[in-house]
């Protein structure tokens, strides 16, 4: 009696899900290591809800093996498409092959991957990280007339954002003979590490005297760095300029308070474009470029207060 009830319920449920015909999309997110990442996740979830997509969300806690497991489980569940925001660039080939064999299209968002075989994924939707680095460097060079001793807080070693932002930044300052990076260490994209590393860097650089700017690969590390600069008795924003990438609300507040100088916004609204591409692809249109690129604008202290009010309310 019980068994038949369970069976009946099961059949009804499966019928329902077939009847609904909603897209089921698996999303393997990095984690929620920063404010930006959280708004990215929230934006994707909201967009999915708006479109009636059944989103299977997986938080990998910054570990690739968790992401690979999540992707495998998406394949086992037979989702219609998979979105991956990869933690690191390498090691994706086997699992993407499995997805291809199961005929599940994969869209890469945010960071890059290296697989050698472009047919393993539909497209990659991302900000152009090196362009962000170039924008940040150009602003700094314009502000300091190319005379600057810079300390750098790198992102997680091996992450695309860290590699490309550093590349773009270095390309620009390479043209200015009086500008150079004197210290560079990883702050692992977090506020705690950013603060700890900045503390030590300031001590190694004679208490921060002569350092003209802090260039951080994301806002969280910059915010940690700002605290370290303050505790060292210097004034962030004037004694040491602070420039970074992301555009999280807290950083706009720091800019409005005069503690930070500039940030290149990294749009967290990657969900919409990703779902567009997937719907187009599943609709039969296979003619999709392999890289869809978005780059945000550079914001400075002038508009920071207004932007902070706008973003805080979101």
């Amino acid at each position, binding site marked *: 009696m019980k068994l038949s009830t369970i069976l009946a319920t099961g059949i009804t449920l499966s019928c329902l899900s077939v009847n609904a015909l909603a897209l089921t999309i698996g999303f393997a997110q990095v984690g929620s290591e920063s404010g930006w990442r*959280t708004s990215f996740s929230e934006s994707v979830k909201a967009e999915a809800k708006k479109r009636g997509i059944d989103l299977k969300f997986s938080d990998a806690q910054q570990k690739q093996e968790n992401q690979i497991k999540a992707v495998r489980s998406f394949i086992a569940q037979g989702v219609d498409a998979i979105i991956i925001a990869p933690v690191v660039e390498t090691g994706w080939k086997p699992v993407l092959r499995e997805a291809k064999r199961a005929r599940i299209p994969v869209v890469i968002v945010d960071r890059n991957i290296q697989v050698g075989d472009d047919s393993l994924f539909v497209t990659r939707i991302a900000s152009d990280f090196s362009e962000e680095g170039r924008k940040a460097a150009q602003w700094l060079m314009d502000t300091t007339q190319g005379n600057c001793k810079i300390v750098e807080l790198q992102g997680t070693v091996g992450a695309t954002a860290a590699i490309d932002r550093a590349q773009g930044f270095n390309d620009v300052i390479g043209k200015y003979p009086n500008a150079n990076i004197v210290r560079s*260490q990883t702050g692992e994209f977090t*506020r705690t590490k950013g603060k*700890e590393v900045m*503390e030590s860097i300031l*001590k190694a650089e004679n208490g921060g005297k002569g350092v003209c700017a802090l260039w951080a690969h994301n806002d969280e590390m910059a915010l940690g760095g700002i*605290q370290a600069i303050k505790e060292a008795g210097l004034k962030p924003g004037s004694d040491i300029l602070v420039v970074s990438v992301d555009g999280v609300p*807290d950083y706009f507040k720091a800019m409005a308070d005069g503690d930070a100088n500039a940030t290149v916004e990294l749009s967290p609204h990657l969900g919409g474009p990703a779902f567009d591409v997937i719907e187009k692809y599943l609709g039969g249109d296979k003619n999709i470029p392999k890289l869809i690129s978005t780059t945000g604008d550079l914001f400075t202290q002038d508009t920071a207060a207004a932007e902070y009010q706008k973003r805080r309310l979101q």
Partner: protein
Amino acid sequence: MSQQPQSLSIVNKVDSPADEALIAARKARYSPGKSTNALGRYLWPVSALVLLLLVNLFMDASFFSISYQDGRLYGSLIDILNRSAPVALLAIGMSVVIATGGIDLSVGAVMAIAGAVCAGMLVGGNYSLFTVICAGLTVGIVAGLVNGGLVSFLGIQPIVATLLLMVAGRGVAQLINQGQIVTFQSDAFAFIGIGAFLGLPFPVWLVLITLLLSQLLLRRTALGLFIEAVGCNASASRYLGINDKGVKLFVYGLTGFCAAIAGMIATADIQGADGNNTGLWLELDAILAVVIGGAALSGGRFSLVLSVVGALIIQTLSTTIILSGLPAKFNLLIKASVVLIVLLLQSDVFRQHAQSVLKGLKGGKA
């Protein structure tokens, strides 16, 4: 050596054989924290620390300069003390848990929960600082007691029982603040992380106070002895009348308490609670600190002071790497190599081998 007490007691002109036995027993009595080769136990961890500091001396002598500004001491050495505080606190709790033959993998997650609770209360309501701190500590102790209950009363393997909270705890921390990094403006609470008292950063004081109180509690009462007895042989100690379940419950509670303080330091330091990153992987650093301090993971003997030295070694290493200016990609490799060397130096077997190899070399030359 075994003849020594007897001859002594004869000199003391003991009347009855019963007294003689008593004095012999007193002589042979286990004196907590003062084992026969105490010097050997302290020698290697402390010399590893000194060696690391010497490396810095040769790299850049300004490493040792300490100045006084804004009412606090300022310098790399102070930074090391300050930055090692969370791991040192975790290591104090961890060494006691490890002494009972257990392990606590959840301390990093408990830090995140305590931090999230405090930040949530500071932002969400009008609570007094005292209430906020008490709430943070209570959460830590409760989390620890949950672990302790699972281990002692339900008999679950410590590594499994605490793994549950290690995984779930971060989820709880994120739930408390809806997955956001909550930042707060409270100078009073921030003092826990960035304040200074008598020139030293406040976290350092918290470590000293916790170390002192734990040392008094464990070494001036029989509790430390009970813990070591349970770690050596839980059933034997039960037959001796030690409440081994109670002891285990207590040590996990203590670890939770230490983790809560560490979590509040980390949260106050950046004036924000980050459920995902507060205390991430610090449980491993804490275990490493205990091991560097010379404790065996199989349980038994422990030393709180040596565990704190272990935490200092780890932090000195991290700071040295940052100061050295080496590319970031070498960080983990250097850390692992140095830890390996420290552990090898502590291994009797390795030292004996090394000695015989050296002797062999000398002999070969001669």
